[in-house]
């Protein structure tokens, strides 16, 4: 199943990205190679043909040029140009952060991030050289989505390693503490107390197994929103469950029931959501506590029920029997 979803995500991303890029090419979203006329107020001019100024972009012209109603007000953007004696040269347009599309996208994929580069021509100085009329031709922009998909793939891979390595410290701490509890017999003790509750949920686990205690502690940490403790404890629980796994590499029923409880996301106080609501100026950020608990209860009950029902179907047990045959 994960194979299909994984392949689906990767292939759909590529197909959609190509689709968007083809759309951009066909409808010439970026007006590649088209001329864009501006008036520039000069602020600084040196003898070598290099000058700085403010380019005035009118909303009317911009919207007509790109065929979209994106710019509401006229815009003034800093520009720097290097021009020869005939009035041809290069320019760099320093886009502000709230620049309109498609310029924002073009600047994102420009060689100098945040700026638009290109060729300036037909520069005519007017008045006492305080103003100039010119024609801009931007560097062409192609395959924006393909580039962003590739970049995202690389960025996320780096993030994945950072997340995993970031776990080392807390993992070591909690595995150390759990080892102490295990050797001291505390985990067995907890498991025995919970026997009536866990016998139904995890019939495959012996009632005094340390896995039960790890599962309980993971669930408790999750409910209290202690994610730093929850992940190490959850992984400890998985390792304990894996000790009872007759076929290494294949998930057991108990593991899937445990994950159903875990991904149900039962939290007593959804701290992140409340913080975001408070930051957005909510008059009652905590109003979602009750509704979140009910939502999570629905998810948990449905997940546990589904894990119990689906494990009965032979289709899902095929993999285990096949594996046994191979052995």
């Amino acid at each position, binding site marked *: 199943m994960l194979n299909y979803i994984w392949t689906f995500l990767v292939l759909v991303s590529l197909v959609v990205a190509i689709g968007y890029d083809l759309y951009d090419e066909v409808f010439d979203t970026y007006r590649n190679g088209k001329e864009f006329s501006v008036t520039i107020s000069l602020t600084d001019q040196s003898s070598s043909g290099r000058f700085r100024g403010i380019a005035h972009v009118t909303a009317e012209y911009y919207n007509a040029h790109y065929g979209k109603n994106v710019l509401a007000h006229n815009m003034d953007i800093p520009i720097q140009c290097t021009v020869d004696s005939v009035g041809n040269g290069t320019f760099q347009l320093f886009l502000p952060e709230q620049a309109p599309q498609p310029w924002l996208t073009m600047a994102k994929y420009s060689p100098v991030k945040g700026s638009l580069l290109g060729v300036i021509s037909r520069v005519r100085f007017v008045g006492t050289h305080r103003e100039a009329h010119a024609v801009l031709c931007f560097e062409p922009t192609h395959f924006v989505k393909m580039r962003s998909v590739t970049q995202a793939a690389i960025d996320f891979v780096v993030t994945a390693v950072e997340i995993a390595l970031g776990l080392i410290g807390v993992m070591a*701490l909690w595995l*150390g503490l759990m080892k102490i509890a295990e050797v001291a017999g505390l985990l067995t003790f907890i498991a025995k107390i919970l026997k009536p509750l866990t016998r139904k949920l995890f019939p495959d686990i012996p009632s005094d197994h340390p896995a039960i205690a790890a599962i309980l502690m993971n669930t408790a940490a999750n409910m209290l929103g202690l994610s730093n403790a929850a992940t190490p404890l959850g992984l400890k629980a998985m390792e304990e469950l894996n000790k009872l796994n007759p076929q290494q590499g294949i998930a057991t029923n108990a593991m899937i029931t445990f994950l*159903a409880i875990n991904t149900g996301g039962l939290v007593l106080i959804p701290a992140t959501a409340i913080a975001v609501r408070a930051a957005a100026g909510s008059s009652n950020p905590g109003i979602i506590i009750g*509704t979140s608990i009910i939502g999570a209860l629905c998810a948990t009950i449905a997940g546990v029920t589904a894990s119990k029902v689906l*494990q009965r179907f032979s289709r899902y047990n095929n993999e285990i029997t096949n594996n046994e045959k191979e052995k």
Partner: protein
Amino acid sequence: MDVVVKNSITILSIIAIPLVIALFILWALVKRVHVYEVFVEGAKEGFTTAVRIIPYLVAMLFAIGMFRASGAMDIFVMVLSPLTNLIGMPAEALPMVLMRPLSGSASLGLMSEIMKTHGPDSFIGVLVSTMYGSSETTFYVLAVYFGAVNIRKTRHAVPVGIIADVCGMLGALIICKVLFGIL
């Protein structure tokens, strides 16, 4: 009453970890366990477990990252919104439903954005933050937890996770409609 419950939960989550640490060590001392040696023995596993997760997490986040960047989400929203309109789910909440199981950071961004445009106390604002607060990043959890024990055949874990997510989202929608919306 609400405040009392909330405060006691907050206090509980602050003292939980120190309490557990103290309990473990005191219990071990009573049982005459060599706590330091045993701690180090257990902590050794921390590195290998974290490293063991890497390939699984890389594979999962690689696909999810591409999916996020491709803009495929917009197309899914377009295709699915007539269906979700039938059950009375606002179209603005649909990206959250689709993104929540895949990426925690993306769904957090979606939530903040919706708060900004619709206001945190609007029906959509409450609904989306309930959806965020009541579920987990299922695929991340699957990758990390199964990765830690080198499990590649996940059997019915993915369908179970998806069923749980769908039910959780529907539960959030229904409870928000009952309490804050017009049913």
